[in-house]
């Protein structure tokens, strides 16, 4: 066992905490689920390998001396993944600042603060690298199996990307602290993280819509304009792509550079981390005076009071808004496609409808969790003289109301092009939202709203059911908009999912 107060001892402590945190995340706190989780992970890994085979098997023979189109494709994919890694790393860094947990103990102990935070930053980097490697593993494994071991170098590139993403997240968050202060950093960092995570995908989709009328991000990457303006194939810009394609010199350079950047970031920022963590600790005591407030009580029914409360709480919590912002941001490309379609009269709404329906299902799932499970005063509401059914009804109405507010403009624009398509889209949105809400009702639990980020861990069945029902209703809506009776197929699947959920629900 290493001596206390050394880097190795602190790293051991962080590793132990990290491991227990991960196990709790996977098993939702039920240690007896470990075996089930292990089996589920194996099945998931197998499924991901099949999925990866379908996506990348055809690229396994790509050689090192690739042409510009290949380099643009690989680099674009890497940048796409990196933006998501950066988004996740920013989340982790912000959380490290604002989660109190053991910070009081650490900051009052005689251990070097610099040393503690250097280890903590390394832990964040380690987690980012591990997530990146695990997500990329099925794709790299398939490429290595089909195209040889040279593809294994991609693991090094992915790890270096995770390291650079963490370094960039540290730099960005510290810069935000200096620029806007501890009070606003949390909110802005969360929004920036959400925007970064979505911006690259959305940007490519928008470019593709304008260049080819397609929503595929790869269409933009392979466009003539992009290929004409790309740097020369010998440029250092392509090193990561070369490294992925099996160039050992590029691999060494990318890995060395990636971890050097991380090392420098940790060395530079670990000293300031403690000061900023202290500043963040003072934020919870900040007074927020409500600018606009009602001077008088208004006469409202209990249901309306409940609905209004849900909307007010959501509207006043920018952190929760930023968490749901991702889903709404993804609506921008389809909305743009709709606008382009409407302008050109091309009628390609069949592509748009499933995207919108899917987004509605996902958004409703999040909102339903907040409204139904994330009730911060459950005893107050339960001890009120209102029937439990009416409380639930009011909360469902609050969710559906918010969904209507977000999606009504899209349906309205769609109605100008085709009333039938608008009707199908509206029905699809309502059905997907209602299904996601029903799933949340079946698996409702008692939690704090601040636990929103971890809502998936309380029930993985609910998470998967929510995703699959949204997909099924999206397919139903797309096929219905195309005017085919095959739409009944995915509709029956969605109904089957909901029936299954009701059967296995702990509330059944």
């Amino acid at each position, binding site marked *: 066992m290493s001596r206390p107060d050394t880097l190795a001892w602190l790293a051991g402590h962080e590793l132990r905490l990290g491991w227990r945190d991960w196990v709790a995340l996977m098993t939702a706190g039920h240690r007896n689920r470990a075996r089930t989780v292990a089996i589920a992970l194996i099945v998931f890994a197998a499924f991901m390998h099949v999925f990866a085979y379908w996506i990348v098997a055809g690229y396994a023979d790509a050689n090192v001396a690739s042409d510009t189109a290949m380099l643009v494709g690989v680099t674009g994919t890497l940048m796409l993944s990196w933006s998501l890694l950066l988004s996740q790393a920013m989340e982790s860094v912000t959380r490290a600042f604002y989660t109190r947990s053991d910070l009081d103990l650490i900051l009052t102990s005689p251990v070097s603060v610099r040393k503690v935070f250097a280890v903590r930053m390394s832990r964040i980097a380690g987690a980012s690298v591990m997530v990146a490697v695990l997500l990329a593993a099925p794709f790299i494994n398939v490429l290595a199996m089909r195209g040889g071991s040279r593809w294994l170098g991609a693991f090094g590139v992915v790890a270096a990307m995770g390291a650079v993403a963490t370094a960039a997240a540290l730099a960005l968050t510290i810069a935000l602290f200096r620029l806007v202060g501890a009070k606003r950093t949390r909110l802005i960092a969360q929004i920036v993280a959400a925007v970064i995570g979505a911006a690259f995908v959305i940007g490519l989709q928008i470019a593709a819509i304008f260049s080819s009328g397609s929503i595929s991000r790869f269409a933009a990457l392979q466009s003539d304009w992009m290929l004409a303006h790309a740097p020369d194939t010998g440029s250092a810009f392509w090193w990561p792509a070369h490294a992925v394609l099996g160039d050992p010199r590029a691999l060494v350079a990318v890995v060395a550079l990636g971890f050097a950047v991380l090392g420098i970031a940790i060395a530079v920022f670990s000293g300031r981390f403690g000061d900023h963590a202290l500043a963040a600790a003072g934020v*919870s*005591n*900040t*007074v*927020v*005076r*409500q600018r606009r*407030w*009602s001077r*008088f*009580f*208004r*006469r*409202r*029914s*209990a249901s*309306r*009071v*409940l609905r209004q*409360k849900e909307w*007010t*709480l959501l509207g*006043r*919590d920018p952190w929760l808004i930023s968490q749901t912002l991702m889903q709404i941001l993804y609506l921008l490309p389809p909305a743009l496609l709709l606008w382009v379609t409407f302008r050109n009269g091309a009628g390609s709404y069949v592509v748009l409808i499933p995207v919108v329906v899917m987004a509605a299902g996902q958004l409703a799932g999040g909102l339903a969790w907040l409204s139904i499970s994330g009730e*911060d*005063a*459950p*005893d*107050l*509401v*339960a*001890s*009120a*003289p*209102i*029937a439990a059914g009416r409380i639930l009804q009011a909360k469902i109405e609050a969710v559906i109301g918010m969904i209507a507010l977000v999606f009504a403009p899209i349906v309205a624009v769609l109605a100008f092009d085709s009333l039938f398509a608008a009707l199908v889209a509206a029905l699809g949105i309502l059905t997907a939202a209602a299904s996601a809400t029903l799933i949340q009702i079946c698996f409702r639990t008692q939690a704090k709203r601040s636990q929103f980020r971890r809502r998936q861990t309380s029930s993985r069945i609910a998470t998967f059911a929510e995703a699959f029902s949204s997909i099924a209703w999206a397919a139903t809506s797309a096929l219905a908009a195309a005017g085919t009776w095959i739409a009944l197929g995915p509709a029956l699947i969605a109904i089957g999912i909901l029936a299954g959920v009701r059967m296995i629900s702990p509330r059944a």
Partner: protein
Amino acid sequence: MHAPAPALDLSQAKRPIALAVRGLAKRFDRPAVDALDLTVYGGEFYALVGPNGAGKTTTLRMVAGLLRPDAGSIAIDGIDALADPVAAKQITAWLSDEPMIYDKLTPFEYLEFVAGLWRIEAQPAEARARELIDWLGLEPHAHERCEGFSRGMRQKVALAGALVHDPKLIILDEPLTGLDAGSARVVKNVLRQRVAAGGTVIMTTHILEVAERMADRIGVIASGRLIAEGTLEELHRQTGKTAASLEDTFLTLIAEPVAQPVAAA
């Protein structure tokens, strides 16, 4: 073994019953509440004391309609709380040790929300809310979001919420936990005034001095059963320690094996 509780005197028996619990039972892994009988009279301050895990909170949660009992009956002001929970809740307030408020609402908005849930007319509810805000010293913070409030202030907001609909029965679970002396005194004064105005308060507490000073009667609960009940003097007599403090009496009572539960009034 301690002596059984003395019979109630006639004057007490004539008082209206605010809460009547009969044969109440709740089982989790083991029995939490076991055939509990409890009577609290109108205008009375009743303290329920007992060791950790005795079943105090479970009992009060069932009375407040937050937990369904396995057996037994609960009547609040003559209303069967299990058959007609909405009517029973209309005249009841529940306050736990953890203040149930919304960080993003101001005290004024919180009270408007609670008044709306209890379907109180806007005008009288607002007047009452302003009175409570003033009374509890929340006026300077009435339009600040609760997220920056100290524990004491949060508990005051929650207490205002419990009182805004003018309940006949207030049920409090460890309401003084974590409060500083000033906040605790405010809460105690409010509860005293409530009882003086004819309201009924039933409260669990670990602070025996509070029970000793504030309660008209004290119930001692252990292993889910009411093992002793009465005024301070009556409890002393039961243990034969007439000059002892409530703490001594309490420790003597819970040290003895649970035998005969106290008969219902």
